[in-house]
Each structure stands twice: as C-alpha cells, then as structure tokens.
C-alpha cells in the first residue's frame, strides 16, 4: 500500500475514534446538565408526577447508556431524533428538518467568506514575505492585527454603521428565508461575510508569512539565490511548496471557526445560522437539537483537520515519493 494512503487511512481511523469519544462527551455532559426539559416546559409549579409522566413520554426515564446507544444507532442511520419543541403539539419536527436550513445558511456564509478570505490571506502572506520588513509588510500586518484584535461584534457594528446606515449600500440585517433567491442571499450576507473575513484573514496570512520566512534561512533558499533566481520565484517555487503543512493547518482551523464560531456575528446581523439555533436550543433544553448541532460542529472540526493532515502528508515529498 502506498504510504500516503496508509497514513490517510490511519488518520481516518483516528478521526472515527475521536468522533466516538466526542459523542460520548456530548451526550454525558448534556445528561449532567442541571434541570431537564420537563422542568423548563412545565414550569416551577409542576408536580413530580407530571414531570415523571412527561419524562416517560419522551423516554427520558430510561438509563443514560441505553438512551446513548439508541441515539448513536439512530444517528448512524441519519435519524437524529425529534425536536422537543414540537412535543405535545400536532407537528413533530425531526432534528434534521430543524437543522438543515440553518446548516445550509451557515455553510453558505462560511463558503462565501472562505472563497475570498483564503486566497486573499495566501496572496497577502506571500507578498508580505517577499517585501518583509518593508512598508507594505508593516501596513498589512498592522491592519490585520488591528482587525483581529477587535471583538467581532464591534467590527460588525462598525461595518453596519458605515455601509448600511451611512452609505446604505447593504442591509443592516441579513434576514433570509428558504425562498430568498441565490444572489439576493449573497447580497444580504455580504456584511457578515466581510466581518468574518476581517477576523480570519489575519491568522492565515500571518501563518503563511511566518512559514515562508522560516524557510528563507534554509540552505536550499540560499542556493536558489546563488543560482540567480528572482525573489518572487524563490518564494513561489522554493519556499511555498515546503511550507504547506503549517499553512493548511491554520486554514483548516479558520474554516472550522467559520462554521462553529460565528454565533456572535449571526446574532448581530440576525442571520439565521446554526449558531443561533444552538443557543436557542440550549436555553430551551431542547436536547436532541443541541446534540445534533454539537455533533455537526465536531464532525466539521474532525473532517477539516483530517483534510489538513492529508494535505500535509501529500505535500511532503518524503512521504509522497518514498525511496
């Protein structure tokens, strides 16, 4: 078997193990949460009998490990259970139905941001490495450090004041529903996307710059200089191909952040993403929805890190082309 394939399979196995552990942690920590859904719904005046009956109806009176395995077995078949929000009413909404549109919105925003942020970060990283310690480098570094140092809600409100209120180019609220046309969706998501871009570009750009500069002291770069290769080519041909490992790791981390960490931006722009959904579900003790969201967050992290690992292996010539 090719060593790259073997490594990829190994990492994949480890990812599955991680996922299993995460599911246990999610389940047990939610089980340990004080106050159940029944208490929240039925209020303080509820008698122990009504609570017990309520719990029995939802199957919550059974031992935790049984409920865990039931959850996992169903989840493996794509069934994440039903939202408690519909309990008692006529419409039972499945967790998948609750999450799907929100997840779509979140991915929409994340991809929209990443399409601009990742190439921009790489481009700026290469340029700042090329003109390191010059005025261009200083300006870009100062700017990105400023945007990263400011809380994202602050960045969001500044953008809102400038581009939605003063100039009226964009809407201040990104209200979206499933019937919103694609380009309208893009247009309405511009301000949240720009906010997220401003806070993620700095990480990726600085890692690109650092990974490249770190390599510039190595003998093969000196050799390239002594071969009369131009500075731009030295970076593109001789430094960048050897710097992918750390860069890809940071990109994966930033992309994961775009999926799981954007709740503040969602709230500010009232963008119906998965972050808001989860916050709402937590406050109403809607455990199946919280579990579903958390699992999606975990899968996002694991998959992106797995991809970063595999790219790190594939871009390492020693592993890709064994002796």
């Amino acid at each position: 078997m090719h060593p790259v394939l073997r490594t990829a399979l190994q990492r994949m196995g480890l990812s599955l193990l991680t996922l299993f552990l995460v599911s246990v942690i999610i389940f047990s920590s939610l089980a340990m949460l004080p106050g159940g859904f029944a208490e929240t719904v039925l209020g303080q005046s509820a008698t122990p009998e009504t609570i017990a009956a309520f719990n029995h109806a939802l199957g919550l009176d059974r031992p935790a490990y049984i409920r865990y395995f039931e959850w996992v077995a169903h989840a493996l078949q794509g069934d994440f259970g039903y939202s408690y929000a519909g309990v008692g009413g006529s419409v039972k909404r499945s967790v998948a139905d609750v999450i799907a549109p929100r997840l779509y919105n979140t991915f929409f925003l994340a991809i929209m941001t990443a399409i601009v942020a990742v190439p921009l970060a790489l481009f700026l990283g290469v340029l700042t490495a090329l003109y390191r310690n010059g005025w261009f480098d200083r300006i870009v570094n100062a700017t990105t450090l400023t945007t990263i140092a400011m809380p994202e809600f602050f960045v969001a409100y500044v953008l809102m004041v400038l581009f939605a209120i003063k100039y009226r180019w964009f809407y201040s609220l990104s209200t979206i529903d499933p019937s919103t046309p694609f380009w309208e969706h893009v247009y309405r998501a511009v301000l949240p996307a720009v906010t997220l871009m401003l806070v993620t570009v700095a990480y990726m750009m600085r890692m690109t710059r650092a990974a490249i500069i770190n390599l510039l002291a190595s003998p093969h770069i000196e050799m390239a200089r002594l071969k009369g290769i131009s500075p731009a080519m030295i970076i593109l041909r001789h430094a960048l191909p050897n710097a992918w490992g750390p860069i890809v790791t940071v990109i994966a981390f930033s992309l994961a952040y775009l999926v799981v960490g954007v709740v503040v931006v969602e709230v500010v722009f009232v963008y119906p993403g998965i972050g808001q959904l989860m916050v709402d579900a937590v406050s109403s003790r809607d455990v199946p929805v919280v579990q579903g969201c958390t699992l999606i967050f975990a899968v996002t992290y694991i998959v992106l890190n797995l991809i970063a690992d595999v790219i790190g292996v594939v871009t390492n010539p020693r592993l890709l082309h064994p002796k």
Partner: protein
Amino acid sequence: MSSNPRKGAERSRIKGRTLLEIRDLKIEGESNDVWHPIVKGIDLTLRSGEVLGLVGESGAGKSTLGLAAMGYVRPGCRFVSGSVAFDGLDLLKTSEAARRAIMGSRIAYVAQSAAASFNPAQKIIDQTVETAVDHGIMSRSDAEADARNLFRMLHLPQPDSIGERYPHQVSGGQLQRAMTAMAMSCRPELIVFDEPTTALDVTTQVEVLAAMRDIVERFNTAAIYITHDLAVVAQMAHRIMVLRHGLVVEEAPTREILTAPKQAYTRSLWAVRKLRKAEEPGGDVLLRMRGVSAAYGTVPVLDDVSIDLPRGRTLSVVGESGSGKSTLARVITGLLAPSKGEVLFEGKPLSRALAGRDRETLRKIQMIYQSADTALNPRQRIGEIIGRPLELYLGITGKARDRRVVELLEMIELDERYVDRLPGELSGGQKQRISIARALAADPTLIICDEVTSALDQIVQEEILTLLMRLQRETEVSYLFITHDIATVRAISDHVVVMCQGRVVQQGLKSEVLSPPHPAYTELLLSSVPEMDPDWLTRLLDREKKTSRPG
C-alpha cells in the same frame, strides 16, 4: 533584459585571462548588535581555467570570501570596502538585477551539504535546469538533454532517469554530483566549491572529487575550492591560499606550498596529521560484545558483532556512514536493546534495556557526541552542565561541587572563568571540551566518543585528541572511539575494528589492521584517504582503471 548574461562569456574563457579580481575586500558580520570584521582586507586574483584552493580553519573567512566572489554576503554580514571585479564588472557596485543575471549563469556555487541545498519538493532535473531556463540561456528541452549529458559525464547511475527522482531518493554522493551538474548547466566561467566533499565518506569522496576535477578541466572552468582538508585541496587546486582570521597567510602554487611552506602557521597546518599514539595491547577486558545483532524495527543494522575492549585502552570503530558504528554505541549504552547476543561490562552482563541498569552502571559508561552544539543545553551555564553529573552520580553538592567543577575545567585546560558562561559564548573546540568534562565528571571507566572531532577543524581536532590521550594516561579511562576518519584512527587507537554494513570486517591491534595485507574493504577504505601528494588522486584513478575497484 537588456544585457545578455552570456555576453563576454566566450571571451573570458581564454586561458590565462584575468577573470576575477578581488581588491582589499573587507566584510563584517553582526553578532549581539556589534559589527566585527570577518574578512580584513584580502586581495585575490583568479585567471580563467585556474583552480584556487582556499584553506584555513573554521572561522578563517573562507566561505565568506567564496560567497563574496559572487557578490553575495549572507544575512547578518555586510561589505565594508574593496572591490570584486568579475570580468571587469564590480559586483559590489552593480545593480541587483545585473548581479542576478551573472549568478548561476556565469558564476555558479556548489555547497557543502547537497541534501540541504536541494529543494526537497522539486525533482532533481527541474532544479538542475532552473537557472538555464530562467535566464533564457536554453530552452527547457535542450537544458534537460544537456543535464542528462552532464549526469552521464559525472558518472551518475541511470543518467537518463535519475533527474526524475526527488533529492531524498538519491544518496549524498550522488546528490553532490547532481549539484555539480546543476552548477555546470550554464557552463559558468567560475564555480565556487564550498567544502563540497566534507560531508561525504572517504570512498564516496574519491568518486566525487574525480568527477568534479574531470568536468572542471573539460570545460576549462575556473574554480575556487574551499576546504579545511589539505590533502583534498592538493588534488584539486593549481594554487593554494591559506587564510587565518580573515587575512591571507600565504599564497603559492600547490606543489610549492606543500613542499616548502614559508609561514609557521602553514607549517603547523601541515603538521597536524603527525599525531601518533604508541599502541599498547592492554590486559583485562573491560567491555566484551558477543554475537550482538540489532535492528531498527525490521531493518537489521548490526549482524553478529563481537569485539573486546581492554581496560585503559582505546578501541577505534571505523567505517562509512550506515556501517552501524553509532548503533554499536546505542547498544552499549542501552538506548537500543540488541535482538541477539550479549554485552559484558567488567565481566558481568549488561542489562539489554536502559531501564534495567542501575545508576552505578550508568555512571561508568559515559558518552561524548559529535555535535557539542546540540549535546549541551544552550540555556544552562557551564557550571550547571558539569555539576549535574557530580550531584546525580556522586552526590557531591554545594562548595565541594563547585570546587570539583573548577578542577574538571582545569583538567580540560579551561579555568574557573568559564563556570558562569553559556555554551553559546564558547568556540566549537571549547564546547567539545565541556562535553568531555561533563563525561569525566561522572568518573567513568568507559567513554564512548561518537565522531567527536568530525565537526572540528584540524588544529582543534589535534588539541582535542591530545587532551583525550592525556586524560587517558591520567585517569586510566577506556575509549570506544567511533570515527570515519583514518587519520584519527592512526592517531589515537590501540585496537581497531573495521565495520561495513553492520558486520565486523576486520579487527585487531592498530599495527595489524593498518598494515598490509588487508581484506578488500579495509584496502578500499585506506586507499580512499587522500594524501598530501598532489598526484595521489591521479595515481589512484590510474590504478583503478587497471583493477576495477572492489566494493
């Protein structure tokens, strides 16, 4: 680009024409915010087709001067004054772009470590043709065809396909020749060779030297050959320039400087290889290995190795890289458990694994490593480095410890002023002395020295070897001395073990092993050691043409 980089290339290839003229060159380097001189006013003239050897100990400014010949200084250094005229153009005054047009195409560079000097992510052929294609000298397909031709001239195996491999997929010697091909690809008028064979085994070195000399002669290329190995430079250079502390000590044609050096310093460089210890067989056996085999995972490294080391004597283990020398040390110290066989120390079997050895056994076997830079904790002061084994093994603390540290420093010919210094403030030779003192602090009966002088220049090497011999006389300590350098073996051994591919090829007293008749491998190893005679390589190659090399 307006100026054709090849302009003048043919004109300057005429033999005897002045190609490079360095006048009163001064270069400074920065450390701790202080600029100090590295090259202190050197004149150098090189004619086309001529090979100039630059010799000197480390820190003499050889590499800095070699790079300056290309108009380049390393980061942290700067040109102060003087001129570097290449074919009439002052490289220090010309534009960056003009200098870049000359670099690689008219002046090329061959570095010491080929493995580090190739981009690991690119195929060898891509890197070989890069300059020729980038500078618009040849089309890509022409350059590739030419590169394959150069690979053939340099006797690389499978010259038509070796370029398709990545640098880590070929051996060090092959990579060094590929780098020579890379330097040759634009047919430069001048090549700077910066210690190109220092990292290679002696047998590989011969092949690489022969290939480089042949190709330089064939294209009538001028060269600056930088090395600290006089015997090597004697084979390559028409003229030799001896440098010390950034100044020229002496400069003369090779034969003249070898037979009649004028300066005392030059004579002292020549004298280094005369160090000899009279061999003594020795009595009771301190360390005995019986049928030891060892492996890294499934890769066998040692195969049925049996050796004896008498108490108070020096046993040298010699062989090329990959012969299993260092693995031998790892087995003795317990870092690697052998798969077969046993190791007896003072008559008792040693536990195979480190965990099974008591502190007293650990104390008695100490190690000194090749690179003192990485073997000493850069954040610890010398007093702590030497004091630690005193506390750990002997329970000496407080004032007694401090006194003992100073005593140990005096034993290695340093003094109490060094107690509060950090390793970074010391020279390479001083750092290796500290490593020795640290080993001595444990009051060991056996010290394993793994290539301890390989990273040092010859003068410092001799000082360290002399020190080790003196300490042996004073403390009766035994040495297991791992080295690939035959001159070191001659200098310090009582007994010699020759290893090849994990097996012992030959062992015995120094006088037996180093005098004929030899087994084929020992013969190859000994015949590959360069001698001071400028005709040595030619003779060796002639002899090989008649009888094909074993090996």
